[in-house]
């Protein structure tokens, strides 16, 4: 049998068994019209220069306070860096650095060891317009965060729920599957305000939370609010550990943290050992579109001794959580 004959045979089988005429008429045209609408709606959401100046004028007190705090923070960071030594030579990677523990009653402190995904875009983001609420981008390694020895990522493989039951892409469990690169698939929630929530299954003293939104390109996620609580409904004992919603558009209060440009390092939020079982991360679109991407969330904690299934009360005033680049 000649090759052409065999191909004719294949054509016959495929036409009879697999070919289905594509839809035409109202369905096809209606879908195309909806796609055109999506394309028109997919305009980058960012602060234009005029709006930025207006916002600066309206919130001059906040800006002045932020400048004061930033200056103080730089001073403290210089002191902190002098105490813990120089940055590690691998960009973004922070190795275990033991700290002397003269008081044997306190846990031994080590530098948090974070496994980072590969860098996915160039060193200088150029597509993000400046804003008074946007942190200046720095590609250098972040200073080490000291945490008690034995601190681990207690979110790995833990159940995740989301505000959007029908994600645009992926599944909720991808948020804690250990894959931090964007090539292995991730969760993408629909437009506007959305959240993901991790159940750690038992209370932990949480020392740090790191969130990776989509980081294959420079992008700023809006209204990033991170909360912890002892109950899944976030009704009691709710504490906000990060909030960069500067105009309260998410309705969770005005935040004092700055927006930031995503990259492979994720956003590290130091939480000072705050006890909680549930972690919820909010967002409200990003500088490229209105969708909400969650590639991975790490929660670094240690077991809380004597904690049962119920929520863990706060025993003492905790230091205000801080964000490290």
């Amino acid at each position, binding site marked *: 049998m000649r090759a052409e004959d*065999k*191909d004719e045979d*294949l*054509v*016959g*089988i*495929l*036409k*009879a*068994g*697999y*070919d*289905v005429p*594509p*839809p035409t008429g109202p*369905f*096809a045209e209606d*879908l*195309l019209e*909806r*796609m*055109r609408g*999506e*394309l*028109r709606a*997919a305009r980058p959401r960012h602060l234009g220069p005029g709006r930025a100046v207006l916002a600066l004028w309206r919130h001059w007190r906040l800006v002045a306070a932020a400048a004061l705090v930033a200056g103080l923070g730089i001073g403290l960071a210089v002191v902190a860096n002098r105490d813990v030594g120089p940055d590690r030579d691998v960009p973004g990677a922070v190795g275990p650095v033991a700290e002397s523990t003269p008081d044997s009653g306190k846990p031994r402190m080590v530098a948090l060891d974070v496994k980072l995904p590969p860098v996915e875009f160039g060193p200088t983001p150029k597509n993000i317009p400046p804003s008074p609420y946007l942190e200046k981008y720095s590609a250098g390694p972040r200073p080490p965060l000291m945490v008690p020895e034995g601190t681990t990522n207690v979110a790995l493989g833990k159940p995740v729920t989301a505000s959007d039951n*029908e994600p*645009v*892409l*992926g599944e909720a469990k991808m948020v804690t599957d250990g894959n931090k690169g964007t090539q292995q698939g991730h969760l*993408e929630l629909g437009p506007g305000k959305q959240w993901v929530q991790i159940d750690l299954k038992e209370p932990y003293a949480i020392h740090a939370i790191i969130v990776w939104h*989509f980081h*294959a*390109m420079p992008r700023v996620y809006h209204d990033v609010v991170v909360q912890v609580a002892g109950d899944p409904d976030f009704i009691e004992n709710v504490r906000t550990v990060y909030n960069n919603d500067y105009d309260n558009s998410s309705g969770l209060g005005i935040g004092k943290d700055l927006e930031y440009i995503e990259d492979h390092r994720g956003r590290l939020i130091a939480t000072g050992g705050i006890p909680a079982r549930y972690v919820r991360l909010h967002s409200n679109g990003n500088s*490229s*579109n209105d*969708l909400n991407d969650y590639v991975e969330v790490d929660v670094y904690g240690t077991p809380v001794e004597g904690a049962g299934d119920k929520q863990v009360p706060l025993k003492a005033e905790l230091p205000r959580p801080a964000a490290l680049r």
Partner: protein
Amino acid sequence: MTDPELIHAIQAGDETALDALYRRYLPSVWRYACSQLAGSVAAAEDVTSETFLAAVRQIGRLSPDGGNVAGWLLGIARHKVADVRRRRGREKTVQAGPPVDPPGPPANDGPAALESAETRASVRRIMDTLADDQRLALEWKYLDGLSVRQIARRLNRTEKAVEAVLYRARNAFRAAFDRAWPTA
């Protein structure tokens, strides 16, 4: 226009390019949805709609010169099919490897027999076992009548590479079909 040119244009907001991309790949997405959700036109329409709408929402992040658009669309469609199955509350396991044997051979030889529901299901299962590029190359070559050069452009491969893909796809399909229907 080539696919990268269409993607560039769509990213710039060109609705004409969006129309062209939609009409170019609607048949492939539709066939895939129908093969995965056999017997439910409504579900296939849902998957097709959600796939293209999600594609428009994500197109800003797509690198125009990397990968192939059809594979990307099928990747989205795969997620959407899974969503539909979850919503329906029933599982349909799609397994790699040889197709499941049908209960019996077609009643008659020839095209009429091939149009039987069992045979259609068998062909769908065989296509499911093929890699995306093989599935697409087969349907573009033998159903849509595209040349190897046109397929190479769509798959972002060389013509030689596409010939190799087609060769492997034909062999895999025929072997699986012969196992399922020895008398056909």
